[in-house]
């Protein structure tokens, strides 16, 4: 018999959406996580509520590689509509776990894979009367079978069931029953464990597993956001939902039971960003969450906030574009449209988180940056990071941390200092602001999207305009030293070749670098964490002869941004582009890079 692959596999579940498979699959992923094994689950779902194919893909990697890997070792194929393509996608030597309640056709037969039939539906029909339960427990039956087939710890799975139904205890026994139906059938009919299996190790430490969207929401709660205005759009909706959930737990005034936040579902994205800008103008920390189409709709207002210098935090959970594009698939396609959102000369601060821990940290930090620089700040997440569970360092908060509210004048300040809303008193391009209601006779000014002078008076004078827009650019220069700098994965530059990546390309890129190293090609690497790019980003590019820029869009937008902002020779930057809507893989990166290295 072939040696078993332990703690290193890709499992894919092929389901029909709306059948309860998601919670069973999550349960399975969590069990692997609790056995101390690094795991990265990814939901591949349709833009639909019920009846269409949906997949759940899970990479299990003892080495801790969390990027997607395309080669499927085990397929749980329970959606008849996609079974032929699901079988075709199994890696040679892999396994198909299928529902053997019905006879299968000859086109389902492949000589190079293993078949494990479990009569899931048949057993459910025999053991449950309610048709809804017959459907739901089918999912639990295959989880039970996998526990046997992969040599998992049943007690771990049972504990998850207990926690899940802690408030609905009567559901626990029927779930256990379903688990054992699958488990016993697999044990009695197959040689367990099969050629791929898991084994408890200790590679998790204090890590957590959560979705990026929830982490951003918690970051906003910790960062002091009191106004959240939003309009539903996949894949950002769960940011709003999580913000409300955590506020209900953490932001209720104990004496009165009243809310220390305002949560508003707006009539559209235009209103959502308007509410954020209005709240921030009036001194509250406010944010919205949206995706590419929402950014397009918000663009006019984003220009206002930029020009009138009003803070705003905008979460862009990116998805496949343009237009409605692939609304339930991942991409990084809004780099340019967000960086330069709105008409006229504008550019905006972008933060690129790679993990839930960083989503949390950057969300909290975004409010400080927005207040400090009186400008919109964008958190550039994507569907993969936002809606999938990710293994992540725990969320951290330093209790001595103070909010940086920037240059905000109080009534006392106004008594002793001259106020001109757009006077650059400190020479850093950032002016002092006041909020309504501060002082009865001092500090009032008129905010407008039209050109104005240093005292906020309307002007069409060209000199005043030029000095105003140049001063805003000075602010941009100042910001370079405030935004998070890049992360390097080598102590010092060793190679003539470099790789640049950001956000969710990181996991795959780091794995690719390891693979390339094994092949004898050494790369220095840099993860960019923010725009504007600071000196370190520039230096890294200048220190290397050739630089690969890995990203998930067709037009190499991040590369364009680097070239444009750092005035680079385009020939120096080679794009590595994945844009099929699936998270990028290490193999994809290595194949493209080795091909290009071989050519040059």
């Amino acid at each position: 018999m072939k040696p078993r692959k332990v703690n290193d596999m890709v499992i894919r579940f092929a389901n029909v959406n709306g059948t309860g498979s998601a919670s069973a699959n999550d349960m399975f992923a969590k069990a692997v996580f609790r056995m101390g094994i690094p795991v990265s689950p990814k939901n591949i779902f349709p833009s639909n509520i019920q009846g269409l194919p949906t997949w759940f893909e899970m990479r299990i990697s003892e080495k801790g590689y969390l990027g997607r890997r395309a080669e499927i070792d085990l397929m749980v194929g329970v959606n008849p509509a996609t079974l032929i393509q699901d079988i075709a996608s199994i890696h040679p030597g892999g396994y198909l776990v299928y529902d053997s309640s019905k006879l299968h056709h000859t086109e389902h037969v492949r000589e190079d894979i293993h078949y494990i039939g479990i009569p899931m539906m048949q057993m459910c029909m025999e053991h449950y009367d309610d048709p809804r339960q017959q459907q739901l427990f089918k999912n639990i039956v295959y989880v039970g079978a996998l526990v046997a087939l992969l040599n998992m710890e049943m007690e771990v799975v049972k504990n998850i069931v207990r926690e899940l139904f802690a408030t609905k205890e009567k559901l626990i026994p029927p779930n256990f029953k379903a688990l054992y139906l699958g488990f016993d059938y697999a044990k009695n009919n197959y040689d367990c464990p099969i050629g791929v299996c898991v084994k408890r190790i200790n590679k998790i430490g204090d890590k957590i597993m959560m979705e990026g969207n929830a982490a951003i929401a918690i970051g906003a709660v910790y960062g002091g956001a009191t106004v959240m205005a939003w309009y539903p759009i996949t894949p950002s909706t769960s940011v709003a939902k999580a913000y409300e959930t955590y506020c209900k737990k953490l932001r209720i005034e104990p004496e009165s039971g009243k809310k220390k936040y305002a949560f508003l579902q707006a009539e559209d994205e235009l209103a959502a960003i308007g509410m954020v800008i209005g709240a921030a103008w009036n001194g509250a920390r406010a944010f919205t969450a949206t995706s590419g189409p929402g950014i397009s709709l918000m663009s006019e207002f984003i220009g206002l906030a930029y020009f009138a210098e009003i803070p705003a935090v905008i979460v862009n959970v990116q998805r496949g574009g343009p237009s409605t594009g692939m609304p339930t698939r991942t991409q990084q396609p809004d780099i340019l449209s967000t960086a330069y959102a709105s008409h006229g000369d504008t550019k905006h601060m972008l933060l690129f988180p790679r993990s839930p821990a960083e989503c949390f940290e950057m969300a909290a930090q975004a409010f400080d940056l927005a207040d400090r620089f009186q400008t919109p700040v964008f958190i550039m997440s994507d569907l993969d990071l936002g809606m999938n569970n990710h293994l992540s360092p725990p969320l951290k908060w330093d209790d001595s941390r103070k909010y940086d509210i920037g240059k905000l004048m109080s009534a006392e300040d106004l008594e002793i200092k001259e106020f001109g809303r757009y006077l650059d008193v400190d020479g850093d391009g950032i002016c002092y602001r006041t909020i309504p209601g501060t002082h009865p006779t001092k500090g009032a000014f008129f905010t407008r999207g039209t050109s104005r002078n240093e005292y906020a008076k309307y002007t069409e004078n060209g000199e005043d305009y030029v000095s105003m827009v140049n001063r805003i650019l000075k602010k941009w220069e100042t910001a370079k030293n405030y935004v998070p700098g890049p992360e390097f994965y080598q102590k010092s530059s060793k190679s003539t070749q470099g790789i640049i990546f950001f956000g969710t390309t990181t996991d795959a890129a780091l794995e690719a670098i390891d693979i390339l190293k094994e092949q004898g090609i050494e790369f220095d690497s840099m993860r960019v964490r923010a725009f504007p790019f600071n000196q370190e980003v520039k230096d890294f590019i200048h220190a290397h002869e050739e630089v690969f820029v890995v990203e998930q869009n067709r037009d190499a937008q991040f590369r364009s941004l680097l070239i444009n902002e750092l005035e680079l020779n385009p020939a120096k930057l080679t794009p590595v582009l994945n844009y099929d809507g699936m998270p990028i893989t290490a193999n994809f990166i290595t194949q493209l890079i080795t091909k290009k290295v071989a050519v040059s």
Partner: protein
Amino acid sequence: MTYLKPSFRHPALPKNKVGFTKVDYEGAISTLCAGCGHDSISGAIVQACFELSIEPHKIAKISGIGCSSKTPTYFLNNSHGFNSVHGRMPSITTGANMANRDLIYLGISGDGDTASIGMGQFVHAMRRNLNLVYIVMNNGCYGLTKGQDSATADFGSVSKAGKSPSPFPAIDLAGLAMEMGVTFAARSFSGDKQQLIPLIKAAMSHTGFAIIDCISPCVTFNNNQGSTKSYDFVRDHIEATSELDFVPERKEITVQYEEGRTINVTLHDGSFVHLRKLAPNWDPTNRRIAMDGLQQAKNKGEIITGLIYIDPDSKCLHEILDTVKTPLNSLKEADLCPGSEALEVINAGMR
């Protein structure tokens, strides 16, 4: 060109209860056309705020884009102002109001800004009963782009720019507001300060969305023969529902009127509106009667003005959302940040 307004004022100018003179409520000199109805409305706002003795910094004035939306520069210099984006004043004001519930929000819009590009935000702010005084300076045309018909131009009305009469029916903003369930609806005329000033005062004391649809003739582009928004036409067709006084803080009413012809509506803050009915059977606290009255006037070709409807028990957005009494913008880290211990609990739930 710069317009400078002389700053000298007579030292003996009367002061209101909070120690401010009327000058403290004025703004920069208007750059609108001479005779513009909007300037009269600005004057009424100044007078109303002075008489109400509101400290100027307790008001925020917010507008969209257009001639109407330029006016906040021309009143309340000591209040923060925000001239935002076309048709989006309601969303800016919603956010501002969420940040600080203690200020009075004065939203200024026009008929283009409200009835066309801003229709969506207008109706949704009303639906949420945002605590806002929403004044529409309604002249039936786009003045700043030289007189195109707006969506409130009446069917058959001829503007100076348009050779042919308007082929579309007008959107009646007060009627629409009633349909949307607004909690305070009024219509007035820029040329009738007697009526407009108490209406603005009552709107400012109302808790919730208060719309004043104020017909304000455009002297340059829509004051010609054939226009239904000209000074002459409006004066000839105006019909008031009532005469009203706004009475702050439960002052005693000294003037007596004929039995059955007066109504007192008490507002949240204890002030009340005292109405002398002119239209028979008009009850401004009865939505159905008010809507019927509006429709009847429309059929007769009359422009009904005055307080059309008020819900004295109105609950504003903050009350609906159940937010804390402290303005959200004054909460600090200690109030807002749950701290590391709570975060550890969250982390534990993710393992």
